[in-house]
């Protein structure tokens, strides 16, 4: 059984002679959080806008919950929820009015509980232009999920949010995921994408250069693993110590920091050396390349390995 909620086959979007998206293919399963990453101008917004039915593609096929977004926009409206980058609400509307207004057009009961959930209860009668940027984004999110969409598009959802609001948003995303809502997360925040996404896709100049889980993507790069070691007698700082598989070595704040692509050999040698020198290990940290490292590597080289 095909449980894809979003399918893009040879999807292409052009503006005149400019090719914004060039025949990309991907699919997103039901209940999946799918991160869409890429530098500015990579084609993320064009892809999202075509999936949301705001623009028409110039080639290939798109399906959102089985619906062609370009030709069945009425059905699509009740299936998707969209948190736009700019909130896009009239400046005089209040959160309560906005919830009632949009829920009425979706023909569902107004979800005023979301105002409590997203910390907007005290501001429910405040006009939109008087809300802070974070409150405006939270209201936008509330409106995006108020009609229980099957597919939720989040465009930079945590931009401008404080730590607590960000955590609340992530909780809400997990809750929606648990309810089998498919979430497309477009973000420049790599830590967020790595933490929240089941899979990510990296777009570069209109082409899809990497798709996979954050672990898969970080594992396929040429990135070096960082090993930081702190010992009681600083035995590793001695000039005659040579460890294997070290690409780069620096010291900082009593730590010896090694970068290596073969951490098995390196860790084994570190432990052996410390024991041989009669030293005591105080701290040892191993940090694999982050999604951000991998993203920068891909966007700088333009290819996925």
């Amino acid at each position, binding site marked *: 059984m095909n449980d894809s909620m979003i399918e893009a086959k040879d999807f292409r979007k052009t503006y005149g002679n400019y090719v914004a998206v060039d025949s990309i293919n991907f699919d997103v399963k039901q209940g999946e959080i799918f991160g869409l990453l890429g530098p500015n101008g990579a084609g993320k917004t064009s892809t999202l806008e075509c999936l949301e039915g705001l623009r028409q593609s110039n080639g290939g096929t798109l399906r959102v919950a089985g619906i062609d977004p370009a030709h069945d926009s009425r059905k699509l409206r*009740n299936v998707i929820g969209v948190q736009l980058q700019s909130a896009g*609400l009239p400046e005089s509307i209040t959160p309560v009015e906005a919830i009632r*207004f949009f829920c009425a057009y979706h023909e569902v009961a107004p979800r005023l509980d979301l105002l409590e959930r997203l910390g907007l209860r005290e501001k429910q009668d405040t006009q939109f232009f008087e809300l802070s940027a974070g409150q405006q984004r939270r209201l936008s999110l509330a409106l995006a999920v108020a009609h229980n969409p099957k597919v939720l598009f989040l465009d930079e959802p945590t931009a401008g949010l404080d730590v607590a609001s960000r955590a609340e948003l992530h909780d809400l995303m997990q809750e929606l995921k648990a309810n089998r809502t498919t979430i497309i997360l477009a973000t420049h925040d790599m830590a967020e994408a790595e933490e929240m996404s089941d899979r990510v896709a990296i777009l570069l100049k209109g082409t899809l250069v990497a798709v996979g889980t954050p672990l898969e993507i970080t594992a396929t790069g040429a990135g070096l693993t960082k090993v930081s070691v702190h010992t009681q007698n600083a035995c590793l700082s001695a000039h005659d110590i040579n460890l294997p598989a070290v690409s780069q070595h620096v010291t900082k704040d009593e730590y010896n920091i090694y970068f290596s692509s073969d951490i098995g050999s390196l860790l084994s040698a570190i432990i052996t050396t410390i024991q041989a020198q009669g030293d005591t290990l105080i701290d040892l940290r191993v940090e694999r390349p982050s999604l951000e490292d991998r993203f920068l590597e891909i966007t700088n080289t333009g290819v996925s390995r």
Partner: protein
Amino acid sequence: MNAFSHHFTFEFRTGIRNKQLLLMNYLFPLGFYLMMGFIMPGINPPFRAAIIPAMVVFSVLSATLLGIPDPLVNARENGIFRSYKINGVPSISILSMPAITTLLHLTIVAVLITVTAPVLFDAPLPVNWLNFVIIVIAIAIASAGTSVLIGVVSPNSRMTVLWSQIIFVPSMMLGGLMLPYSMLPAIAGKFAQLLPATQAMNAFNGLAMGKTADFLPWGSVVILLTGGFLAFGLAVYLFSWDNHNATRRGNPLLAWLVLVPYVIGIFLLS
């Protein structure tokens, strides 16, 4: 409450909450009415007989031409229409709701003017109330339709001001609000017939205020209604969800078709 009533309620409240709309819907027309009522009859005694229709037409022009187009352009530029589209708000609601709620605001103002003018300025009341109401509705539809069309085809706020003033200022000078149509030179009179205000004042004179119309008064009513609905239809046809989206179905120059009923009127009504 259904979607229509929620939308209507919100838009109606916006007409009072929004300082610019409050000014154009209430403060400006009522302030101007009081100023003109106190000053003009002393300078131009026949104006007393025209206070009610002239100031009602002024209120309509102020609330519609100066109040409707700019919020539409701003909403499009700020992505509000995109948000509406995503949430299933149809374009016809987006365009009709500001017009309908503005009609309600200006009805309140028209009632205030009609009720207070006889008391404050000894202005004569309409002799045919039904016709008076019909003409108020006709000019309101004509002016609201034109205003929505201006909001749809204007690429930015500066252009809304330009287009609105191109109609508003000549309406004040040539539309029969300050000077009777009969006092205009012939060529200016022909030009004035392109203005909804001229048609409305002609209809008021001939059908509601017990005076003589300068040209066929029911023809003016027909022109206003035809022009209003034509303008609204063109606005729906030419509507674009956002500035960058090439969803507009026709060239904005098609908006000039709104003048067709008025041009025909010049030849048929004189």
